[in-house]
């Protein structure tokens, strides 16, 4: 029980499967009810597929854990119909300050681009996020089996058999497809004997959530070598309900059990916040992290997503944010395969595209880690030199790396893309996630991304072509001027449109292809290519 939050308790109900005693087959089973598993379940339900989710616990995330949710993740949750309460409850910061010892060396303002529905990111405790996701999943009729722990995973050619332990004993079921979203210590991954390759870091970090009793500015503060915690680093971040996340780097030799004790934590906080600051300790945890991933995210009928597939350092908020992009990439493909509209090869593109994204995230998070925790004397000398210079010389501020905040990956070399044959400027190249823009629909203000739906869309700037049926797959036209007014002309600008320009957009809102004129044959070919047919 926290002072600002009461954990919901989800009940165990013995399932029909277990009661029947027979081994029943399900089309899709998800293991793990964290942000990634829940998002996958909601997406499948939104796409009209039956889904079963298994989670071994009976409540949401214990502790605030992941705290920053980036724009692209919020856009995905908006497509899934649950971003509203997250944005309402979450907090937004704009000013970041970087301190060294007792001095502020510089500050920066996040100046997010206008004309996007979702903010650059929000800070929100993970338990709230999961609660909003659970509510959405329940509203969609997703079957969640709480307190059911997978104890055996046996892959076969055309299904996976699971053994499950429940408060009423064990039972078994089969899944045509299994989404393993069972986290960094993934049991599924262990059961399949898969290697999780990468770097293990020894530094321990202490996180303390405190409830502040007086106003404190909504800013992100990062200290190198703070006077209250010499030779280390500290991060201060705001969350909902006046709760502040304070993250102390402890170094490799700290004893996690000792460090977690209030009599150890409170003096650290006092030294940092000042003798007069009034606060209550909400939650404390000590963590280490790894930067590593699976070689492949698809193993036959088992599809790994989120931390089960790849683990990054927390710097840059690339864990949960990239995990949700995994499921965003996966679910429409799985649907097409299940419905017989695409070959299984389409799922290999999940592997290609998301392994590429994971590499990018690992690269960024490893770089931040090397800056924050230099591993050699020379590395430390350069890091300190950057900080020495940053106060006076603007160039050095761009080298300061206290985390590069999560940006969505572009699948630039994906086999699903149809390469440009016409001239285009701007960011919306094949493989890019679509940019949002304010639009007007029937006289009301709206957003471009909200108009894209969950299938293939043909975004047209000019005469709208008819709806296309491409071997059982529908492509809905969406025309500027007919279906929406490009009220601030930002859609035209962001998509570098001229009269006649069209974009083929995938169900996950990534660009599949674009042309200056609509040639139906080319669009059909691009749809087939985007489905690996």
């Amino acid at each position, binding site marked *: 029980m926290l002072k600002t939050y009461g954990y919901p308790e989800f009940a165990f109900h013995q399932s029909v499967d277990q009661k029947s005693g027979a081994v029943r087959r399900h089309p899709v089973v998800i293991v793990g009810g964290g942000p990634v598993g829940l998002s996958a379940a909601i997406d499948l339900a939104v796409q009209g597929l039956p889904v079963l989710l298994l989670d071994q616990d009976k409540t949401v995330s214990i502790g605030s854990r992941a705290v920053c949710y980036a724009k692209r993740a919020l856009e995905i949750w908006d497509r899934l119909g649950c971003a509203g309460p997250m944005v309402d409850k979450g907090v937004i910061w704009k000013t970041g300050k970087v301190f060294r010892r007792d001095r502020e060396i510089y500050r920066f303002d996040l100046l997010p681009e206008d004309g996007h529905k979702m903010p650059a990111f929000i800070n929100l405790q993970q338990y709230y996020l999961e609660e909003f996701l659970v509510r959405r999943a329940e509203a969609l009729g997703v079957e969640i089996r709480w307190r059911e722990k997978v104890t055996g995973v046996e892959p076969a050619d055309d299904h996976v058999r699971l053994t499950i332990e429940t408060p009423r004993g064990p039972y078994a079921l089969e899944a045509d497809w299994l989404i393993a979203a069972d986290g960094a210590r993934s049991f599924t991954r262990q059961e399949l004997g898969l290697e999780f390759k990468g770097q293990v870091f020894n530094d321990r970090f202490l996180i303390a959530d405190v409830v502040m009793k007086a106003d404190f500015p909504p800013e992100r503060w990062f200290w190198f070598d703070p006077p209250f915690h010499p030779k280390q680093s500290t991060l201060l971040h705001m969350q909902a309900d006046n709760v502040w996340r304070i993250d102390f780097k402890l170094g490799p030799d700290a004893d996690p059990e000792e460090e977690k004790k209030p009599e150890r934590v409170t003096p650290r906080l006092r030294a940092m916040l000042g003798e007069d600051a009034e606060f209550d300790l909400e939650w404390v945890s000590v963590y280490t992290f790894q930067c590593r991933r699976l070689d492949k995210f698809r193993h036959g009928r088992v599809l790994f997503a989120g931390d089960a597939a790849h683990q990054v350092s927390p710097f840059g908020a690339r864990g949960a944010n990239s995990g949700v992009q995994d499921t965003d990439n996966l679910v429409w493909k799985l649907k097409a395969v299940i419905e017989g509209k695409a070959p299984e090869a389409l799922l290999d593109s999940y592997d290609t595209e998301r392994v590429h994204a994971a590499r990018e995230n690992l690269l960024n998070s490893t770089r931040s880690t090397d800056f924050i925790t230099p591993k050699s004397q020379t590395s430390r000398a350069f890091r300190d*030199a950057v900080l020495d210079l940053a106060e006076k*010389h603007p160039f050095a501020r761009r*080298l300061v790396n206290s985390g590069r905040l999560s940006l969505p990956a572009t699948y630039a070399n994906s086999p699903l893309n149809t390469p440009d044959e016409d001239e285009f400027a701007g960011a919306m190249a094949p493989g890019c996630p679509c940019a949002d823009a304010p639009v007007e629909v029937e006289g009301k203000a709206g957003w471009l991304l909200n108009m894209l739906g969950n299938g293939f869309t043909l975004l047209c700037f000019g005469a709208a072509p008819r709806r296309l049926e491409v071997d059982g797959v529908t492509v809905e036209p969406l025309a500027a001027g007919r279906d929406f007014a490009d009220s601030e002309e930002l859609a035209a600008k962001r998509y570098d449109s001229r009269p006649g320009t069209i974009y083929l957009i995938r169900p996950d809102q990534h660009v599949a292809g674009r042309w200056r004129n609509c040639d139906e044959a080319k669009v059909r070919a691009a749809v087939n290519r985007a489905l690996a047919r």
Partner: protein
Amino acid sequence: MKLNTKPNIERPDDFYEALIELHRDLSEEQSRQLNARLILLLANHIGDMEVLSEAMEAAAEEPE
């Protein structure tokens, strides 16, 4: 090769002396820090990643 390795400093002895003078009376640690700052300032002035990469490669070559 974009990196200029032909003589480019007008009075090389003056430069060399100034460089050594800069480190006079500094501890090993202070010298290390100073060198790091100097490299960063020079690297930013050059800016061109190709030149920087070539310089890093040239510097990494072990003398025979």
